[in-house]
C-alpha cells in the first residue's frame, strides 16, 4: 500500500476526529448543567443551609448516632463542592469528585491551621468550614442559573 502523504494523513485524522466526536464544541453555547427554573435552587440552598444545620447539631451536643453521618458528609463534600459549583462545570460527576477532593484538602488545611495557631477546638474548625462553604453557596444563589460557554464537553468517551 502506498504511503499516505502528510496532507492525506492529516485529512484522514480530521475525518476520524469528527467521526469519533473528539472535536470540542467550543463555539456552541451549552447548558450550564442546571435545569433552570426554581428547581435549580435546591442544591445551592442545601449547601448553604446544611452548614448551620450541622453546627446546631454540634453546638447542642446531639447524640453521636444522629450527627456523625451529617458531620462527616458535610466535611467531606460541602466546602469544596460549594466552590467548584461556581466554575459551572457541565459534568456533574467531575464536579462532585473535584469538589470532594477540594473539601478534604480544605479540611486538612483548616485543621492544621488551628494547630499552628494554638486555637484548637473542633467546633471552631467546623465553623470555619461552614463560613468557607457559605460564601460561594450565597454567590451561587445570587448568580443564579445561566447558560455557560466555558466548560463544554469535548466528547471523548461521553457515549456512556
Amino acid at each position: 500500500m502506498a504511503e499516505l502523504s502528510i496532507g492525506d494523513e492529516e485529512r484522514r485524522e480530521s475525518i476520524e476526529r469528527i467521526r469519533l466526536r473528539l472535536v470540542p464544541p467550543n463555539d456552541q453555547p451549552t447548558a450550564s448543567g442546571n435545569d433552570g427554573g426554581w428547581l435549580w435552587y435546591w442544591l445551592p440552598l442545601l449547601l448553604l443551609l446544611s452548614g448551620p444545620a450541622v453546627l446546631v447539631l454540634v453546638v447542642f451536643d446531639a447524640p453521636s448516632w444522629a450527627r456523625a453521618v451529617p458531620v462527616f458528609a458535610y466535611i467531606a463534600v460541602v466546602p469544596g463542592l460549594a466552590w467548584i459549583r461556581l466554575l459551572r462545570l457541565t459534568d456533574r460527576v467531575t464536579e462532585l469528585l473535584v469538589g470532594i477532593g477540594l473539601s478534604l484538602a480544605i479540611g486538612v488545611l483548616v485543621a492544621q491551621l488551628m494547630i499552628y495557631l494554638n486555637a484548637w477546638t473542633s467546633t471552631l474548625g467546623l465553623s470555619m468550614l461552614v463560613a468557607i462553604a457559605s460564601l460561594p453557596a450565597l454567590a451561587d444563589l445570587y448568580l443564579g442559573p445561566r447558560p455557560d460557554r466555558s466548560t463544554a464537553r469535548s466528547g471523548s468517551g461521553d457515549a456512556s
Partner: protein
Amino acid sequence: MTSSVRLRRAPQRRPWDRPQALLAVALPATPPLVLVIGIIALRGTNADDIRSLGLVDALPTQLYIALALLTAAFVAAVFSAPTASLAPGVRPVVLVAHIAAFIVLLHGAAAFVEPLPRFVPAWLHVGFADYIARTGHTLPELDARFSWPGFFALVAMATRAAGLRDALPLLAWTPVVFNLLYAALVYRVARAVAGDARTPWLAVWFFIPANWVGQDYFSPQGLNYVFYLVVLLVLLAWFRPSSIDRARRRSSRRVRTEAARGAPARLRRSTFGPARRAFGLVSIPRGALRLEAEPLAASRTTLACLIGVALLVFTASTASHQLTPTAILVSVTMLVAVRRCSVRTLPVLLFVILLGYVSYLTVAYWAGHLHDMLGSVGQLGRTVNAGIGERTRGDRGHLIVLQVRQVLAVGIWTLGGLGAWRRMRARRGDLAVMALAGAPFLLLFAQSYGGEVFLRIYTFSLPFMAVLAVGLLIPKWPVRRPLLAAGVAFVLSLGLTGAFLVARYGNESFERVLPGDVEAVDWLYANAEPGATFVALTSNVPWRARDIEQYRYTPLGEDLGPDSVPAIEEAMRANPRGAYLLLTTGQYVWGESFYGKPPGWGASIEHEIDTSGHFLLIYARHGGKIYILRQPRGER
C-alpha cells in the same frame, strides 16, 4: 414515498436484541443478589479458620461463585452491543451498582469476617488523632508522622465534631469508602483519556482487584491517594494540549527537520520500504498518538481557578504525607516533559510549596533524620534490595503471598505495556497515560521509603496501568472479535480477583486484630500508672490507640522487641516508674509468619518467663498475659 415505506416497515431484528432484553431484566437484579449471597457467605465465615494463607483458608465457595456471577454480568453488560455506546438497556447506574457490590465484597471482606478492625498501624493512627483531639498539639519528637499531621488533624476535628470518642468506629469500613472514591476518580480519569465508552468501565473493574497493596486503610496515604488522583484528573481533563496545538507543533518541527536535512522526511523513509513492511507487524505506526482525546474546553478564568484547586489540593497533600507530594511532583513534571500539560511552570510551583513545607514545618523531623530522607537518593541498588530482598522472609505461607504479589505487580505492568503497544498500533495511543504509568518508577531514584517503595510505585502507577491494560482488549471500538475480548476480560477479572484475595488478605493471620489482644491492652491502660513502660516481643500489638504520650513503648517501630529473658528484664528495669510485659497471640503469629521465627517460638519464651522466677503474672485471659518484674529480695 420511500420514507412512508420505511415508516411502515417493521424494525429489523438485530441478533443482540434478545440477549439485551434479557440483560435489561437480569442486570439490575444481579448486584443486590450477589451482595446478599456474598454477605451471608462472609458473615458465616469463622475468623478462627484463618491460617497461613490468610483469609483464603477460611472463605466459603459461595463467595467465589457470587464474585464470578457479578463479573460475568458486568462483562456481559459492557460487551452486550456492538454499537459505539453501551447497549440501550445498560444504564450507568446499573454498572455503578456492580462496581459498588464488587468493592464491598472485596475490600470489605475482612470487616464482615473479623470482629475487630484489622491492621495494627490503623489503630496507631487512631491514637495520633486522639492525641491531637485532646491537646490540640502534635508530637513530632515522638513520631515522624506528626511532622505531616494533616490527616490526623482532620480526623481529630471530624470525630470530635461528630461526637465520637475516637476514630475506631471508622477503621473497618475506611477501605470500602476510599475504594469507592478511587473507583469514581479512576473512571473519570479513564474517561478523560479514552475514546470509547467501554474503556473507563473496564479500567475501573480491573483497578478494584488490582489494588491489593492495602494503602487504603485508615491512613494519610489512603487520603492522599485521593489528592493524587484529583490533581492528575484536573490536569488530564483540562490542561492537555488540543489537537490543534499538537498539529501546530508537529508542523513546525517537520519544517525544522526538513530544512536541516534538506529532503522531505517522507521520501527518505520510503527508501526503507521493504524493511519497514517486515518490521510493520510489530512496529508502531506513524501517527500512533494523533487521536489522543481532547481537553475539556474552558475559559481562562475557569482554568486559572482549576490550577488554584490543584495547588490547594497539593498543599494539603504536602501537609499530610511524606511521599505522595513527591509522586505528584514527579508525575506532573513528566506530563510537562512530554508536553501533555500546558502549564509548564506548574512543577516549579509544586516544588516551591513542597520545599517550603519541608524546610519550615518539618524541622523537628529532618534535623535528626536528614540521612533517612536523603541517604538513599540515587542509590538504586540499595533501594531495590530494600524493596524486594529484605522483604522476602517469613514462613511458607507468607512467602507464597509475597510471590503472588510480585507476579501480580509484574503481570499488571506487562498487561499495561502490551495494552499501550496495542493502542498505539490502533493509532489510539495516549502519551499522557503512558507517561503517568511510567513516572512513579522514577521514585526508585528518590528513596527506599522503608523498603516499601515498590508497593508505592505499583499503587501510583496502577490507575494508568489499568487504563492501558484495557487497551490490550479494546485498542479501539469496535474490536474485531468482541466475544474473544469479552472472554479474555472475564478470565482476566477472575484471575485478578483470586490473586487479590491472596495478595491482600494473605497476611491476615497476623494482620487481623484479636479480641484477646485488645482485651489485654485495655486492661493495661485501665491499670498501669502513667509513665510506665509497656514491653512486648514484637510491635504487632493494638496499643497506642489512646494516651500515646502517657506511656513508653518497647518496641516502638514495626519490628522485634527484646526476645530473651535477660533482654526483657533489662528493658523493664530501665524505667524506674515501672514496666509491664505484655504477651499476646498476635505477637507470636507475627514473629513466626512475618519474621520466620520457628513454630512455638512465643510459647517457649513464655515458658522461660514463667519458670525464671523474675516475673509476676498479673493478668491472663484469652491468650493475653501481663507480667511485672518481681522486686529483688534486697530491695523490699
